[in-house]
């Protein structure tokens, strides 16, 4: 007979990384959650790179200017635009998450009377507004990166 105290705790409902992909009937917010994490990882990677690049200015103009010239390469410009898109999405979706976390836009608690209204559906206009703003932000960035001469 084994003692329960020696057994490791199990959470059979934990999906791990596969859970990021949905694995069930979920609203669009589930995929925004995945995208929020992926853009967060991309931004963190860029931040580390950015700290090293910008610290190089300590070495003087003769080091700074060749590094900045590299950033005008089309590949780097494309990566920079993707980082801009990731920032726009992460920031505006983050505003939605902050507002929901603080209890805004989800309605007040009420008796569950059919047809049920969930807080997820109540915050959907906020989600749509934030995604439209993200789209506008990306369009503005696209104009900057691809239409204006640098």
């Amino acid at each position, binding site marked *: 007979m084994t003692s329960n105290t020696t057994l*490791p*705790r199990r959470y059979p409902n*934990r999906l*791990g*990384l596969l859970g990021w992909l949905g694995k069930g009937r979920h609203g669009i917010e589930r995929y925004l959650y995945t995208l929020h*994490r992926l853009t*967060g*990882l991309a*931004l*963190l990677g860029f*931040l*580390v790179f950015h*700290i*090293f690049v*910008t*610290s190089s*200015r*300590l070495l003087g*103009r003769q080091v*700074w*200017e060749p590094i*900045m010239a590299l*950033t005008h390469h089309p590949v780097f410009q494309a990566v*920079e635009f993707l980082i*801009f898109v990731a*920032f726009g999405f992460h*920031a505006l979706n*983050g*505003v939605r998450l*902050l507002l929901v*976390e603080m209890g805004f836009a989800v309605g007040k608690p009420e008796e569950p009377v059919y047809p049920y209204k969930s807080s997820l559906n109540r915050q959907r206009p906020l989600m749509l507004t934030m995604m439209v703003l993200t789209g506008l932000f990306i369009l*503005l*960035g696209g*104009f*900057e990166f691809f239409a*204006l*001469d*640098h």
Partner: protein
Amino acid sequence: MRESRYWVLHMLSAMVILVFLGLHMALMHLSGVLALIDPALAKPVAWGHVLARARSDFFTVTYIFMLAAALFHGLYGLRTMLYELSENPALRKAVTVSFVAGGLGLFGLGAYALIAMHLMTRA
């Protein structure tokens, strides 16, 4: 209790990043659009503009705050994702210790560069 404090800090750092990184992204990555309004805002990575920002107290202080907030926010976020993958206490501690060390190292490098440039341009 400690974890809920970290979560509140994660939220607060998000607000700091939203304001300062929003300003930074606009100045650095929408410079062409902004230059249509004020031509002085064009070419923000030109050496003269880099020195002007380094000389400014406002930019130096806000960059240091933004660096701290962004590193905390990003590393705490990644730590949360990694914590979900394993419940092994030793592994979790190793993640936390390495992130604290890495975060402090990156903050040290970034803050040193900011302060050293500020002092050099002021001299």
